[in-house]
């Protein structure tokens, strides 16, 4: 009896009770585990075997976006299910990052199961369901999110997962509530450090002071799952995910892989490698600068005392070859 919500494709919501054998075990450990869980998508007990919560601010910076994409991409590619809250910002980014590498992801909603919130992310919503993921909620029907339903939702996010990672959180961020639930349930809390000058680093630094594990690479998280939770990274998933975007994420780790990628990338017309090598020294110099810190074109132009035209031209070629990416006006090493 799905209600009509515009032109969205509405699938019937299904329900699982606490007594059901397939009810997630980790969640059951919680004292106030939801008696009923409504869900959309195909229920697969395997999904809940190794879950990893990724939460963070809605006011994501370009740094937050990049690290989320990178870390979550690698973790999801290894076969860990990514759990998050479907809100825009870090939440949505981690869902997307998981889907991009062919991983699976669970979105826990703060509203009734028949409501897509925020509504404009309906494409992401459908994508999660279509790719073997789940939409979960403890509320039925068209119940709209309220102030108190967000923390309630956060306890499910933390409760489903063996560990929770927070990327960017302001002083009173809701993701700190999720981290506190995880701590309360005796699960591991990971924190991704950010620049001290950023307002969305305040909550993170607080977590680190309180003893959260610092994440410097996806390996930190995967090691924890392997050593303590009998987790074996699924190589099949990583190799199966063959889309170019997947490769980009997977390869972003090391430089040699990157070079290999740019060489193997399909070429149309004659090669642009020659034009890159002709001004090789400039491109090398730019890459060197960007490795130290992301920069704008103007900064590079002043630094090298060259015209913005020359720098822009070189950066376009670097961006085309996949060596750098542009985000929020700045160039980063891809």
């Amino acid at each position, binding site marked *: 009896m799905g209600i009509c919500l515009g032109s969205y494709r509405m699938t019937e919501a299904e329900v699982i009770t606490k007594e059901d054998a397939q009810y997630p075990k980790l969640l059951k450990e919680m004292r106030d585990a939801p008696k009923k869980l409504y869900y959309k998508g195909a229920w697969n007990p395997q999904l809940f075997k190794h879950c990893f919560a990724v939460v963070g601010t809605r006011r994501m910076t370009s740094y937050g976006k990049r690290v989320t994409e990178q870390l979550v991409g690698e973790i999801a590619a290894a076969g860990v299910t990514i759990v998050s809250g479907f809100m825009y910002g870090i939440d949505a980014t981690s869902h997307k990052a998981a889907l991009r590498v062919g991983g699976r992801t669970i979105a826990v909603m703060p509203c009734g199961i028949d409501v897509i919130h*925020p509504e404009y992310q309906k494409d992401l919503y459908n994508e999660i369901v279509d790719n073997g993921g789940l939409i979960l909620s403890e509320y039925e029907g068209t119940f709209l999110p309220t102030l108190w339903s967000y923390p309630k939702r956060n306890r499910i996010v933390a409760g489903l997962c063996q560990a929770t990672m927070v990327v960017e959180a302001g002083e009173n961020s809701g993701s700190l509530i999720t981290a506190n639930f995880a701590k309360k349930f005796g699960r591991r809390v990971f924190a991704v450090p950010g620049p001290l000058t950023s307002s969305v680093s305040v909550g993170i630094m607080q977590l680190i002071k309180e003893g959260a594990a610092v994440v410097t690479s996806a390996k930190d998280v995967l090691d924890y799952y392997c050593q303590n939770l009998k987790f074996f990274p699924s190589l099949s998933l990583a190799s199966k995910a063959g889309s170019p975007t997947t490769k980009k994420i997977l390869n972003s780790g090391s430089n040699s892989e990157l070079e290999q990628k740019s060489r193997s990338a399909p070429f149309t017309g004659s090669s*642009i490698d020659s034009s890159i090598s002709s001004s090789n020294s400039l491109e090398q110099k730019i890459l060197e600068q960007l490795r130290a810190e992301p920069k704008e074109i103007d900064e590079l*132009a002043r630094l090298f005392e060259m015209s913005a035209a020359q720098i822009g031209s070189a950066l376009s070629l670097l961006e085309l070859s996949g060596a750098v990416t542009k985000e929020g006006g700045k160039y980063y090493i891809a």
Partner: protein
Amino acid sequence: MLIKVSSAAHSGLESLGIDVEINVANRGLPGFDIVGLPAQSVDESKERVRTAISNSHVEFPQKKITVNLAPADVPKEGSFYDLPIAVGILGSVLHFEIPKKSLFFGELSFDGSLRHTKGTLLLALFAKEAGFEKLYVPAESANEAAIVQGIKVYPIENLEEMIAILLGKLHLEPVAYSEGVPSFTGAAAAEFDMAEILGQEMAKRAMEIAAAGGHNILLTGSPGAGKTMLARALPGVLPLLSEEESLEVSKVYSIAGYIPPGGSLIRVRPFRSPHHTISQIGLCGGGTKPQPGEITLAHRGVLFLDEFNEFPRTVLEALRQPVEDGRITISRSRGRVTYPSRFMLVASANPCPCGFLNHPKKACECTVREIHKYHKRVSGPILDRIDLHVDTPDVDVQELAQDASAKRFLESSLVIQQRVARARKLQQERFREETIHTNTEMKNAHIKKYCVLSPEAEGILLRAAQGFQLSARSYYKVIKIARTIADLEGVDHMRPEHIAEALQYRPKVYGSA
């Protein structure tokens, strides 16, 4: 007694010959009537003419006077029928011959003097085309009419002088055109020199390209980053108008009444910056009798729309066609008028409602939804018509002021203008056989003809089309920009780095979470 005097009516930039027929009847009650669809301003002419004649030491005839403006079915507007009507009435009193092949045009003052009248340039152009030889216009408007070579323009100070000429008592030499003091109200001289703007190297370069190729440009950046300053500095790097363009612009300003008394041809490119509360009619033109809007006043110049996203959507949507076609046809119940509108659009916008998205120091307080909504205010089709999309990052001016390398590259507007002028000249030569003037006007056929890419350059472009997911329109835009970049360098051959640089100015995607 029936007297016929020639004049003209303007409809938009078109002119139409009007016969002013004055009948002064000895029978009937004394009166003064005008027929032939006169508007209020024409009807009021009766009072001006009556008083002006009385004040010129001629007794106004106490007879039944009827004036017909033929053809009678064309609506007449304007105050310039004063002179032909007055001449006709005077002819009946003083019994002089109305000179052949002569046009009379001008508004009268109560004291008999002639006032500066708008549309004189159009009249002169019409006079030449229609085979008139002499033009009697207000002295203050004479220079404007004298722009047109091949007709005799007589500057008339007042009605008494007019009478003396018509009676053969006074002989006046026709005026020769003189390039007057630039006294043009439409163009603000550049308020800033490019050398005054620290940082923003990329945006300055984009402005130079935009000026050289006539490309539309969108500047996006936080408040205070210098968007408005860049736009205001633009007039300083724009090339002067060519003779042909100068005449086009002068025509528009003549009909809009913006050429000052004694004014000459407009040589500076117009720079119009309407506020975002502007109405659709204010921007595109209109009214019961269609008047030119800001886009027409910006013809061959710059239309600067500051706070682009704050303009009402309907107003911006109305820009689509004029931007594409370079002209706008305004259809109203009382007539249809086509005005030119080949302008360069310079728009500036904030990256988000609060303005601080991606700001290095301040936190943006907008939700993704708000940002999304903000950017949706400007429709895709409008953004699609903008060639160059540029970010103006926030700059720390104090820090830059101490940075020597920031100053090393400061180029004055004059230096940039010279490069721009050279690029424009190349374009002029290139499009000599075509109906277009600048690179931005190129259609796909022109691009195929004039933008031959080396295989290497084409390779980059095709790769970018895939990698950056360029739309077909963006694809051609990149080529157009690259053409301008090559023109700035003064080379005909388009090299890979021209394409590579042009790719920097492709549209950005905002609000994707």
